[in-house]
């Protein structure tokens, strides 16, 4: 019982940790579920549940994170433009 609980807790902690790593890579929830399943054999439903719970506990963070992720396409576009510019520049 105690053991069971603690193994559950540590598993959840593991998933939590893995999710954080994914966030470091700027991944979204689905990408994360995918990655964790592929690389760590974790059922997507578990990943998604832990992710959602994390979101509840860390609302502000996730809000900021989502906003940040939304900007990525524009950033990519900007990056592309900069690269173009740079490639055209001759010094």
């Amino acid at each position, binding site marked *: 019982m105690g053991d069971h*609980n603690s*193994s*559950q*807790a*540590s*598993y*959840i*902690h*593991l998933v*939590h*940790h*893995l999710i*954080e*790593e*994914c*966030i*470091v*890579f*700027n*991944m979204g929830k689905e990408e994360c579920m995918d*990655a*964790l*399943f592929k*690389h*760590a*054999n*974790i*059922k997507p*439903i*578990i990943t998604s*549940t*832990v992710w*959602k*719970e*994390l979101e*509840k*506990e*860390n*609302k*502000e*963070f996730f809000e*900021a*994170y989502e*906003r*940040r992720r939304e*900007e*990525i396409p524009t*950033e*990519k576009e*900007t*990056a*592309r433009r*900069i690269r173009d510019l*740079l490639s055209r520049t001759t010094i």
Partner: protein
Amino acid sequence: MLALSPATRDGCDGGSEFLDTTCGFSINPEDDEFPEFADHGDLLDIIDFDDLFGVAGDMLPDLEIDPEILAGDFSDHMNASSTVTTASDKTDSQGETNKGVSEKGHEEVVSKRDDTATESVTYDGDGERDRKRKYPSSASSKNNEGKRKVKVDWTPELHRRFVEAVEQLGVDKAVPSRILELMGVHCLTRHNVASHLQKYRSHRKHLLAREAEAANWTRKRHIYGVETGGNINGRNKNGWLAPAPTIGFPPPPPVAVAPPPVHHHHFRPLHVWGHPTVDQSVMPHVWPKHLPPPSNAMHNPPFWVSDSPYWHPIHNGTTPYLPTVATRFRAPPVAGIPQALPPHHTVYKPDNGFGGARPPVDLHPSKESVDAAIGDVLARPWLPLPLGLKPPAVDGVMSELHRHGVSEVPPTASCA
């Protein structure tokens, strides 16, 4: 001779420079000009003329000298912008009268009044407009009260107390008047505190956004192992991380190409607000209980507190995320995270076993790096969490899983 040579002018123009007008005064206590004071409105109503003119008569012989005194005090009074301090000394009304006076465009400068009556009253020839009444200013102390706004210098110490008070009350619930009480500082007005509070709150929002961004970089650093120590200090003057480094360079990280933005990578998106020159990072440290062994030392004052107690760690329940921190510290952190946390400006201290890698931000992490990261965690679960988010409630997770039909974790059946 400049502006102030006493007694040379006839027909000084009251409307011109203050200094210029220190001439030609005559005092006529019984003058019918007096009633004109009333024309000037509140300002004059406040003034207790009895006091003034009762003595004025005695002062007449001293007129010659007065200009000099006036001259000497001009700068003082110019700054004071014609405040009239009366016994009642109402700050607000003075502020208004200040405005009123200056806006009128005359320099009706009424300087501080000295009760001891070494006063000289000077009138312009016209008497109609600029009346300069000058009282030897004894009241530089009154200056502060007279002015509506005193510039408050938010020193680190002051700010620290402010933050303590706010934390105590709760950021969202903190009310300036209570904050003032808790701070116990006398030279602050509620208004000062209110505006500071506003800035503090908006700064926090920025911090949170940055945290999210910073999450991206930690990993890169570690993976690429590029040490670009110089960039650490490449942050903006005011400590804010330059926004969004994300120039999406395709992997592999063309580090060479990545210009200055590199410094984003580091970690410290936080900086201390309020002291532009101080590049303190404030990380809401929170290194919570995840770390085994959960050390109590950890969670309270952030380690660097001693160094930069600026933003008090938002440790009263807001999400603590430590974006960069300790990824991969070789030494199991324990209270160790602290080392990883760059206490101050240098975000990353190269000596913490971290490569201080600062690869450009990768918008599309490669499979390999993700795999490596995951593998790392699986192999060494004791490693600290890169972000330090508040952990989910185990019960919540379990009940949710049960609803979805998952009864056990770790699942015994092979996942496929």
